[in-house]
């Protein structure tokens, strides 16, 4: 009783925006309940012509690259050892963990037989990209969970698990990068089977590679956008200098993307490009507004150093990615004249998932040391209750700091 009252009092103190998000999450949960009671056919606008709709296009195909910040930044910071980027890693991991957990929720909602999701672990079919992606997503969500445990243990002062987690840190970072490479690209492999269905502006054998590269720059863009927003609205430290470093990396990645895309378009694609004006328009918006404009923006020092312009460029890049994933998974699929518009239930669930992502991020940032994890201000050493390290190594009590 008192616990409930404590929680209610705590929630009463939240900002109005957070309360609004809570309402959205509640509506989303209600909508998913409706979906389970009445079934996919009644509550969604999916049909035999459009077996995959908004949930696959957004909650899975788009949300996975948007959560790619964790593995890219982890690899850049720890493997290439650019230590100053460290303060950005934890928020990225939290975003990634939340993103992937909600991807799993989205996938479960979309399955016709969600109670059988464990079948993928028992009945293997290594020829299926879906099998590969589901295994990777399960593995990677576990990795992200373990990485996320560090701030949780710090918060509650569990020193022993912390020590284990510290030794696991590097293997986890490497595993994260390797697993992510696989499933980010395999999301592109999904559509390689849609040979005569996906429009040739998007269908080419390099689709998996393109998906992987675009996941890298969109993951980095999300970090820029997120850090800018947390600075502005959550009153966190200004990380402009670090974001500038990221903004210097991004145009290189986009450059590679443009080269690969051009090569795939001109040498590997088959079939007509200009047969449907709607597709050409979508493609033009995606590449011009979503790739070239941010590319040239990030090339300019003025944009990289300006908080606002940098965030706008990152936003454009994310817009381009979202449009690209929708083009590949929804608009670009060739159909016989029927139109698919997501139903109310589908929309509410997706809106709820986005709201949950923001809400949980803010709440986690509020209660756990996500942003305080700055190497200069926080003592990296493991508080040692057994004094073992100190006894053995004398004054070098900070052995754990390197792990």
């Amino acid at each position: 009783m008192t616990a409930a009252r404590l929680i209610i009092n705590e929630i009463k103190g939240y900002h109005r925006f957070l309360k609004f998000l809570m309402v959205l999450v509640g509506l989303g949960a209600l909508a998913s309940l409706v979906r389970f009671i009445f079934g996919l056919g009644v509550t969604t606008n999916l049909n035999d012509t459009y077996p995959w709709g908004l949930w696959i296009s957004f909650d899975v195909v788009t949300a996975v690259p948007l959560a790619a910040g964790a593995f890219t930044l982890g690899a850049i910071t720890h493997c290439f050892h650019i230590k100053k980027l460290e303060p950005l890693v934890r928020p990225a991991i939290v975003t990634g963990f939340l993103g992937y957990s909600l991807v799993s929720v989205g996938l479960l909602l979309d399955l016709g037989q969600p109670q059988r999701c464990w079948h993928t672990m028992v009945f293997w079919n290594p020829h299926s990209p879906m099998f590969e992606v589901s295994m990777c997503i399960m593995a990677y969500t576990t990795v992200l969970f373990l990485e996320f445990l560090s701030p949780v243990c710090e918060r509650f002062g569990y020193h022993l698990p912390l020590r284990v987690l510290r030794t696991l840190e590097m293997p986890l970072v490497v595993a994260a990068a390797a697993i992510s490479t696989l499933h980010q690209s395999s999301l592109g492999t999904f559509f390689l089977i849609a040979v005569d269905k996906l429009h040739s502006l998007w269908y080419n054998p390099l689709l998996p590679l393109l998906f992987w590269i675009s996941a890298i720059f969109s993951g980095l863009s999300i970090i820029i956008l997120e850090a800018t927003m947390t600075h502005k609205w959550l009153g966190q430290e200004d990380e402009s200098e670090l974001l500038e470093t990221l903004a210097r990396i991004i145009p290189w990645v986009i450059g590679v993307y443009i080269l690969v895309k051009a090569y795939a378009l001109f040498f590997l694609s088959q079939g007509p490009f200009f047969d449907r004006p709607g597709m050409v328009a979508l493609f033009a918006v995606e590449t011009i507004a979503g790739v070239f404009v941010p590319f040239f923006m990030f090339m300019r020092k003025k944009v990289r150093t300006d908080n606002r312009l940098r965030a706008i460029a990152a936003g454009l890049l994310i817009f381009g990615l979202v449009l690209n994933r929708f083009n590949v998974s929804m608009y670009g699929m060739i159909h016989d004249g029927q139109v698919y518009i997501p139903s109310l239930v589908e929309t509410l669930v997706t809106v709820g998932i986005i709201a949950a992502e923001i809400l949980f991020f803010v709440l986690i940032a509020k209660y756990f040391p996500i942003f305080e994890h700055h190497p200069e201000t926080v003592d990296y050493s493991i508080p040692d209750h057994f004094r073992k390290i100190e006894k053995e190594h004398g004054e070098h009590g900070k052995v754990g700091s390197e792990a």
Partner: protein
Amino acid sequence: MNSDLKEFNSAAAFLIDMTKCTGCRGCQVACKQWNQLKGEKTRFFNGEGYQNPPSMSEYTFTRIKFRDYQKNGQNEFAFYKEMCMHCNEPACASVCPVGAFKKTKEGPVVYDAKRCIGCRFCMVACPFGVPKYEWSKAFPLVRKCTGCYSRIREGLKPACATACPSAITYGPRAEMLKEAERRIAARPERYLKKIYGKEEAGGTSVIYLTALPFDELGFKQVTKRSLPSYTWQALRLVPGIFLTVGGSLSLLSWFTHRKERLKKEEEQRQASSHKAKEENQ
């Protein structure tokens, strides 16, 4: 691969000669009866032509499509039986994460409903648009033509082939192909010089002969390559990529961390020697 193809060609196949189809839809009815499928409420003149129901669905595994056309100023009819093509290398079987689809050695591609998790990737993958979903149910499954596997195992012909008075011939695929070629050669004025299903999607166990151009009848343009090879060319790289990325990143981080450790040790050594010097003095 080649031995597979041999087995595939000796397995049973449907030869559907659309010039001999009278549009009686006996196959449609026989299919419903054998598979105990519910009738669908339909309206006449619903959509193009006389075909009913408007499309294949969870209740309709096969149906006759109708086409009205003019030849030498005369009105003519053409029919097309729509059903699962039972590909040699089925896209549905390759993309299913739990392996619910299987190409049997007898010919049909069968679906194990107990494994299915309902991801509907088979529906996205199938170039012929065959697998349909039980949209009416809360926990839906995929439905499609089974090639009457239950009948074939007992030595019977599929229900539609049994019911058909004229157009469907059922037997080993190699023989069916030979028969199709014989018919085309014997009456070249009657047939279009093409056997649909011979090479489509890497070869199917349902092959068609017709008088009208195939795309006009509503046949889909389908690649000649087997569908699974499109995704496999990327998926086969998975273990290699995993090891390459994991290995190179491990090496890289080992080097960068070693560099830093050495630097730190060097600093400590200098500091301690400095300290020792001071103490000596």
